[in-house]
């Protein structure tokens, strides 16, 4: 191991594995990977990529996570020593990363499901319980708008035994998944009831990173609560949830949902300031990686237009397609610009998925702003 690689390894090991530190770990790992390859250190290359895959997964950098984890799996296949050393951990990471597949519009639908089948095959071969990959399959199907098969996978997942040995019995993770499913199929009351232990804090994550899903639960509960007219509960949920994610570059999807909520309830000063603050953190994301955040920003601008605001100051960073150097934006034109961006991306997702689920979801969120139309 070269001196620089060793220095990086130490710094990586000394950096806490949490949302706050993922942006710091990313450049360290990206520098370490080629150095490990150059040194011919297979295990270091594997280990660095496995960490990198996890970090990218947490930062919504789907493509980078896919590249890192696929290299690891190829090495696992070729190298029994690496397989023994890793002990199956990378297969779990691969499963988790598979959840990101629907968020990359370039990935063909058939390839996504072939890959899910492959991960399930590898996990089965390694003797791993199939509950987690079944839940992931349900999630992927849901995100791709295949609601019938998603429902079947949901039932199958729920019927499989919870596995404490693999720490797959997390109440926080499950509550969030159930909440999202019921909300997607229009059963908002069921969704909120299922999420209650997560929202009131009685459900406890079995792993630290599961606790990260608590913030997703709070973000996902906002729209159902607004639709149910439970605005006090929604505000409480927003305050608690936002406190968990504010300023975190690994939580921009959740921030997008909080922006949508603030747009729906008309707290537009706060929404505009939050939008600017978090757009600045999205510099590494691709357009599709930024989709949820951009939807939130778009809804805020739409709400501004509804409130009769003609111009607004918004801190849109220079790399963003909607950037203007003056920092001052005509609200109507900005709404059109952002709307065109998110709609065209939704159409790309739908074209890949073979349905109109993503566009319908977009319209459903927009409908929270009130009956005035687009």
């Amino acid at each position, binding site marked *: 191991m070269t001196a*620089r690689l060793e*220095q990086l390894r130490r*710094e990586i090991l000394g950096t806490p594995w949490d949302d706050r530190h993922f*942006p*710091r770990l990313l*450049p360290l790992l*990206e*520098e370490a*990977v*080629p*150095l490990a*390859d*150059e040194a011919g250190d297979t295990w270091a290359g594997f280990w660095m990529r496995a960490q990198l895959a996890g970090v990218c997964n947490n930062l919504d950098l789907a*493509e*980078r996570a*896919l*590249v*890192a984890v*696929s*290299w690891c*799996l*190829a*090495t696992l296949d070729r190298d029994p020593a690496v397989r023994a050393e890793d002990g199956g951990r990378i297969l779990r990471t691969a499963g988790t990363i598979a959840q990101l*597949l629907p968020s*990359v519009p*370039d*990935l*063909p639908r058939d*390839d*996504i499901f*072939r*890959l899910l*089948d*492959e991960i399930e095959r590898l996990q089965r071969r390694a003797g791993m319980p199939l509950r987690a990959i079944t839940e992931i399959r349900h999630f992927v199907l849901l995100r791709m708008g295949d609601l019938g098969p998603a429902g079947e996978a949901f039932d199958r997942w729920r019927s499989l035994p919870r596995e404490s040995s693999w720490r797959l019995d997390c109440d926080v993770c499950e509550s969030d998944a159930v909440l999202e499913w019921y909300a997607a199929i229009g059963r908002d009351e069921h969704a909120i009831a299922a999420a209650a232990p997560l929202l009131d804090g009685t459900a406890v994550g079995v792993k630290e990173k599961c606790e990260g899903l608590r913030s997703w639960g709070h973000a996902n509960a906002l729209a159902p609560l607004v639709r149910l007219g439970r605005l006090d509960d929604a505000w409480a949920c927003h305050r608690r949830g936002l406190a968990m994610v504010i300023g975190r570059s690994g939580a921009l999807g959740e921030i997008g949902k909080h922006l949508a909520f603030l747009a729906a309830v008309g707290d537009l000063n706060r929404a505009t300031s939050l939008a600017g603050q978090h757009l600045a953190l999205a510099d*590494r994301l691709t357009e599709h990686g930024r989709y949820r955040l951009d939807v939130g920003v778009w809804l805020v601008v739409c709400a501004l237009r509804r409130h009769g605001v003609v111009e607004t100051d918004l801190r849109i960073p220079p790399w963003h397609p909607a950037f203007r150097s003056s920092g001052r934006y005509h609200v109507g034109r900005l709404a059109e610009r952002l709307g065109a961006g998110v709609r065209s991306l939704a159409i790309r997702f739908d074209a890949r998925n073979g349905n109109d689920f993503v566009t319908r979801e977009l319209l459903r969120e927009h409908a929270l702003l009130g009956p005035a139309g687009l």
Partner: protein
Amino acid sequence: MPGHPRIGRVRPSYPTTPGTFQVDLRGLVDLLSRHLYRSPDVYVRELLQNAVDAIAARRRLEPGVAGAVEIEVVEPADGPPTVVVTDNGIGLTGTELVELLATIGRSSKRGELAQHRDFIGQFGIGLLACFLVADEITVVTRSARDPDAQALCWQGRADGTYDITPVDSDLTAGTRVHLRARTGFEHHLTRDHVLALARRYGGLLTLPIRLGSVQVNNEPPPWDFPALTMEHGRESALAYASRVLDLDPLDAIPLHADGVRGLAFVLPYEPSPAARQDHRVYLRRMLLSESADRLLPDWAFFVRCVIDADDLSPNAARDGFIEDERLARVREQLGRGIRDHLKDLARLWPARLAGIVATHDAGISALAVHDDECLLLFADWLPVDTSLGRMTLGEHARRFGELRFVRRFDDFRQVAPIAAAQGRCVVNGGHVNLSTLLERLAVLRPERRISELDPTEIVDSFADLTAEERSEVADLVRLAETALRSHDVGVQVRAFAPSQMHATLVTNEDSRFRRQLDRTRSVVDGPWSGVLAALPTASAANSQLCLNVANAAVRELARQARQGSIMRVRRAIELLYVQALLLGHHPLRDRELGLLDDVVLGFVEDRG
């Protein structure tokens, strides 16, 4: 109920009336010695503390009484040593003896008396510490509350039994405690050892303490040194640290907080930020601990302090303070004191502050990542590597204003010689934590104009060639583009310093990722290959080989290209490309390895 055992009425084999816990005193003492106290030597601290508190109590009854503590050590030739500690304090009545000495956990300093600030003890377990070194404790005492009180003798034993008997004694009022060393603990009661312990624990007490004819406490406390801003005061403080703490600190910092006074010493070596902070703490001038932790904010890991507290609550082991609001407030105040001092240093003695940061920069950087105040305090003094040499961030700000940094070592290696030749100062953000700190500083201090430098900007900054120069290199560019097209690399020709450099390969984050993607595609098969194939591939726009026409070899290549030496020029271009890849630590893809093979083979065949 089937399946449940039947419950019958049988006489129990144990008492059914209420009782009291039985305490095995010896077992309790062993427990204390192993888990509560760090060393049996604490018995001296507990005896001194009881004596000081007894004198304080007597002064409430008789203001102005001159208190004194006498220690005597008897070392017979044929038996274990004995220690006798005598005070002229309040003394104890018979009832108090039973209540206080024979009841573990009861303290005279609770309740009403606990409000008085001049008591040090409060747990009622101090005397137990004496059982760490003695099997029997004899206490002779006469209460000052009653002028006719008889002297009483309390003899307690480690098996939990005790006697109280009236005795004749020369004590007018006060208490005398006799301890005879337990077998195996004789060393702890020898004269030299007791003198050292008395000095250690009681050396700063104001009451006179004597061991035989020796005055134990005759040293001024370090927090009473003259103002540390005066050189003399500072020298005294540094000398104290050297003598007492065995430390040659970089600086001494006066500390003041509510009911707390002391000094902080800047360590002359770099400790781990995760290491315990071993502070020396006194409670009303009695040494409590030499290894107290959590007294200062985490960021102040680079100092070790000596403090005296009036009001902080000691923990039961008496080696630190209870974590409560008062301690939190004091911690904040002490931290502020250290910060203010460092600010003063920045203003008045910048060289001294520079020395401190130079020693502690790694730890300070690690803390500043999480602590904005720490970052703002130290930022200007943090050393950084730049294309123009090492300097502090403050010096950089004064000399250059705007700060540009690259995030990775490899980028710095690529950019630094070119930037230096242009007189541009680029900071190497590849050092541990530095790019994170700079990004944070950019937010906290926007006027500093700190931003990341995309290495491609360096090429953009090169002067364009003239029309004539462009015409001279046109063939070279055409050949190079053809040679490198399959490698997704664009080609530019510019003139830049240093002229020894043939070329530089400029990449950005995206192109590096695309290289990884290409490399991974070559090792992956099955369903993953389908997924990776769908991801966008490398774009030449993100990777540019910039040939340096200021370099004589490149000019020669341009000449040969004009003359039509196509293969030779092409091979040289390929070589320059691979060389640039290796210099930048870019992973070589299969086709680049093949290219290297071809180039080497070509040269060998030419020579053959």
